[in-house]
């Protein structure tokens, strides 16, 4: 199984942006959601999750806020910013094009 660092560059960012596009979440919830949505195919270690989140935050794509969770803990909730949403659309498009192109190439019949 490939390690998370082998994820295509920027893929983790794209996944995180997409997850946060659905609803604001804290770090732990994000890690659960990642496993949930991608199954065991994409294993993102908790180690690389936080640096990636902080980087997105510093880039202005997502913003963070300290809020109280349902079981009364204070946690840092991340949500998508407006520029982040646009960025996600663009990146998702790019991803779609790339994926299509690659799957076309892979499906080429050997002669």
């Amino acid at each position, binding site marked *: 199984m490939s390690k998370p660092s082998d994820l295509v560059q920027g893929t983790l960012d794209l996944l995180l942006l997409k997850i946060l596009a659905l609803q604001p979440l*804290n*770090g*732990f919830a994000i*890690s659960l959601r990642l496993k949930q949505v991608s199954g065991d195919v994409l294993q993102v*270690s*908790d*180690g*690389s999750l*936080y*640096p990636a989140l*902080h*980087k997105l*935050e*510093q*880039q*202005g*794509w997502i*913003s963070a806020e*300290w809020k109280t969770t349902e079981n009364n*803990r*204070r*946690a*840092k909730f991340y949500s998508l*910013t*407006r*520029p982040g949403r*646009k960025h996600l659309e663009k990146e998702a498009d790019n991803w779609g094009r790339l994926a299509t192109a690659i799957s076309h190439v892979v499906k080429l019949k050997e002669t």
Partner: protein
Amino acid sequence: MQAERWIYKLPLRLRSIFQRQKADEELDDELRDHLELKTQEYIAQGMSPQEARRSAVLEMGGVEKRKEECRDARGTHFLETFAQDLRYGFRMLRKSPGFAAIAIITLALGIGANAAIFSYVNAWLIKPLPFPQADRLMVLLSHDTKKGLSGNGVTSSADFFDYEKQNSSFEQLVPWTGWYFNLTGDGPPDRILGGLVGWNFFQTLGAQPMLGRTFLPQESQPAASHVAIISRGLWESRFAADPRIIGRAVTVQGETYTIVGVMPANFQFSLMGISNMWAPLAMDDKVRNDRVTSWFQAFGRLKPGVTQQQAGEDLAAISSRLEKLYPQTNTNQTTLVSSMLFEIGKNEGEQQILISFCLVGFVLLIACANVANLMLARASTRAKEFAVRGALGASRLRLARQLLTESLLLFTFGGAAGALFGIWGVHWIEDAIPDRIRGYIVNYGRGTLDVQTFAFTFGIAILCGLIFGLAPAFGSSGHDLNRSLKEAAGQISGSQAGRRLRSVFVAGEIALAVVVLICTVLLVQDFAHMVYGDLGFQSRNLMVTQLVLPPAKYKTDAQIRGFYDQVLARVRALPEVESADASEFMPFGESNQVKVIHIVGRPPAEPGEVLGAEYSAITPGYFQTMQMVLLRGRALEAGDGRDSRKVVVINETLLRQQFSKEDPLGQQLEIGDNHEICTIVGIVRDTKLFNLTDRPMRQIYVSAAQFPSAYMSIVTRAARPSTGAASAIRTVVWSVDADQPVSAVRTMDDLITERNTPNRILTQLLTFFGILALLLGAIGIYGVTAQSVQQRVHEIGIRMALGASSSDVTRMILAQGLKLALAGIACGLVVAAGVTRAMAAILSTVKSNDPLTYAAVAAFFALVALAACYIPARRGARVDPIVALRCE
């Protein structure tokens, strides 16, 4: 979208700089939360608490490492470590104040000298003209295509008007000439320097008056009433800054002029020199149609989009048309177009400044190499510290970065101290320029201490800090950790690479120092030759004053003669005066006159080959007063009066050029436009004319009794230096004519010193640079040798234990140092050969590749290097083998 992103980014950046602690705490909280939740989850899955905790941490992969990664994401992490390094650097400098002081002083000298010279480069070469779109201002130069000679001024007055009418490149062409105005009334008579200028002079330059207006076209008509514009300086000094000056009438040359404008203080047209008054240049038809001579110069403003080259081609085409139309006068005559920016730099000092700039750059490199060597030496003694830090996990890059930060810190301090030193240097140069020649000098000889100069100063400081800081950074980051840690303190030898680097630095330093010193020695020799060289007359105790008689008052030759005769008689009667005479031309004076000459009996000169000679009317005792040497024949005598045969004395150069085969005495010269026939009666030695560097020119002297002039200078020889004589002479002149302005009475030596200012300043500067380079070079080689001895104490001990005598050791160390020095000297000689070639233009008496100078400097440097190595060599020789070997 970019801007919107910053709404989110900016608060985060600010927070990570100013609320770092809070940000870090939150980061801790966030990760701890995660771990706790994770642990609980695992416990819920049935793990033991310890096991759950361990799994959670493992999954995180090193909590501290992740925190560091998150901090890195902030983007301001770089700043934080930088601040950390800076603090550490400060501490290191404070701990070794000796090192810091030496390094900072060395850098301050190097950087400061550069800043001072740059402020002149800036003033002279980068923004020398205070006019809008100055790059479109062009100067016209007459050019003789056959002789290849160019001169200031236009080929002839009539040609100028043809150029003006026919050219399609210039918006305006402006004629101008330097002039002086005898201002009388309102206080003592005053001689004001200024110019006669075309009516469009100020408009074309783009200069606005601070009061009143500039000239009108009709004011250039010969019949127009006289108007004048004055400088702010004159307005303040003579007219008490009278706000109602406009329209006021003043008496100039006995005629009434109306002041129509005042120019602001920053108006300077340095081609004209000091100028405080301007009047329209009015030309009558006789002048306008003169195709032979001209007495004015010209400049113009290019039309937008026209290049200098196009303008040159345009004028060349007109010139060749004129050549066909007027072959008698215009054969080989053309006019070149040169930019005013170039011309004003060329006039004074540009080469001197460029050479200084080049050499001062070398001095800076030497200083930097010295400091880099100091840092390398320190880095190798700090090897242990770095080894420990490396063992604790600092990456090589991180260590290199810290060394670089320390070097930047050092160079920034050096830059700050250098800026102070530079300001002092600029003041020194400014003060070294005599006030009287300031007018000719770009920006009045002031350096520009502006933003650019300071940016340059700190720019080079930081650049050098980066470049030379890399050396120790890489030199020491390559240490082998294990070895460094194992070696005993004090036994650590710098890495092989580091030592080689130091040797290269020192050799390079010596090479540059040799170059600077050779340039210095060449220049000092040249200067000494000039100053102590032959003038053709004795300048000691000579005093000069120029008198210009107003034509309105002195209308006849008899009046002029009468005036000078009376003045001379009374001056000669002064007790301190040995002799006094008058001459139209005065060496190192302000004016000169060239007249066309023809030797009677020879075929008429080909067009373009007409002979000219520096012309002067003198009183009979002039040669004696000047103590000029008469080679043959006789001097002019009192008997050469108005009614006797007209006679002329020629100089050596004219003799050599024109009378190589025949005896000139008794032959006749036809002189000037009036074709005066004069018999040659004597030959005198050449004299210097305007500058110590001038080549000799053809000169002729005629009798003032036969050719009276209203523009004579009085030259007086005193028995001994006398300060009272000057005012006595002025009083004498006023006793003859109370309205006659007298220019300052000056000693000939002062005039010569003034003319020689650029060379004098350059020589003094270069002497300073030369000594600095020599000192730094010596310190450099001393430092390297001393350190190598220190590092080799052990080896020396073994050698001595095995039987080497202390003189063997001395010799070995000396040989090593000398080898380095000789390599540097050899490189230096090669580089100097190239650099001095660029200096050839400003050397007049010394060859730029003078082998004796090269050899002397090389030998001297070898000696200095030997002396510098001798001290550490002695120390090496005194090593006690028992102590050296035991200290392991």
